[in-house]
């Protein structure tokens, strides 16, 4: 197995990582639920956003790290960036991009977006952010994500790392806690699950401080 910075050839797999990680172990794809668009259409929007090459947010190729198997196929990946480097939060950047590419859908989805925003947890400025962590189903149980997280943290020389995840994604939460992350904040809104906007109603912010 080979850990490397992502290249354009990995983009299809990266889009898979984003879609599957957003499902957070469940069946609901939040962007489809919020904006009423099919996953296949959203794949293209993600690609359009990557074309903009906007840094300091997760949908930028430069921030992606990939595990390739012996055949050179991408089998695990994650996005890693330092929050707020240029003075704007990654959530604000992502919202601006989504609004730009989904102008009409955004207007008709405002109420759902407000419900989703009710469990948003501000990311810590200056912390290394890990997002969209995903391992292909055929390659789980081999410690690939653990190795990838360790490698990315070591290479960023940042004493603080942060992951946000749905509490309902028990396997992911267990892995992150096993790796030394601990829950720093929890935000819940039962309306989210009732409206089928996410696979769970509580979001966790996990933090790891290291030397």
């Amino acid at each position, binding site marked *: 197995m080979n850990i490397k910075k992502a290249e354009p050839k990995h983009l299809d797999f990266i889009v898979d990582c984003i879609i599957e990680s957003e499902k957070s172990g469940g069946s609901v794809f939040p962007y489809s639920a919020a904006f009423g668009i099919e996953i296949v259409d959203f794949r293209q929007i993600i690609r359009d956003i990557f074309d*903009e090459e*906007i840094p300091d947010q997760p949908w930028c190729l430069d921030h992606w790290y990939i595990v390739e198997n012996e055949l050179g196929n991408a089998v695990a990946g994650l996005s890693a960036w330092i929050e707020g480097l*240029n*003075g*704007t*939060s990654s*959530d*604000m*950047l*992502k*919202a*601006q*991009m989504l*609004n*730009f590419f989904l102008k009409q859908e*955004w207007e008709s989805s*405002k109420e759902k*977006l*407000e419900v989703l*925003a009710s469990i*948003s947890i501000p990311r810590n400025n200056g912390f290394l952010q890990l997002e969209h962590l995903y391992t292909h189903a055929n390659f789980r149980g081999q410690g690939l994500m653990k190795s990838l997280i360790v490698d990315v943290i070591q290479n960023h020389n940042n004493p603080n790392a942060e992951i946000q995840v749905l509490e309902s994604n028990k396997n992911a939460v267990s892995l992150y806690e096993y790796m030394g992350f601990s829950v720093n904040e929890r935000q819940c809104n039962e309306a989210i699950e009732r409206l089928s906007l996410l696979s769970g109603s509580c979001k966790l912010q996990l933090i790891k401080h290291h030397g």
Partner: protein
Amino acid sequence: MDRDQITQELQPIFAKIFRNPEIQITDSLNAEQVAGWDSLTHLSMIADVESHYGVKFKLKELIGMKNVGDMIDLILAKKGAA
């Protein structure tokens, strides 16, 4: 149209969006200084500003805005008054 005029015109827009009639508009004002200025209210504010001035910001312009002063610069440039 000049900078002072835009600053005055932005006041009621910001007051409505951020539900703060007393909000003071300055060039250095940014999201960290205003209660309720999150990604959703930010985009509502941008939509109102675009509508008020009949302008359309490009994505790179939106991303590059760090404070109200940056936005005023863009409005002036788009209205040909920079």
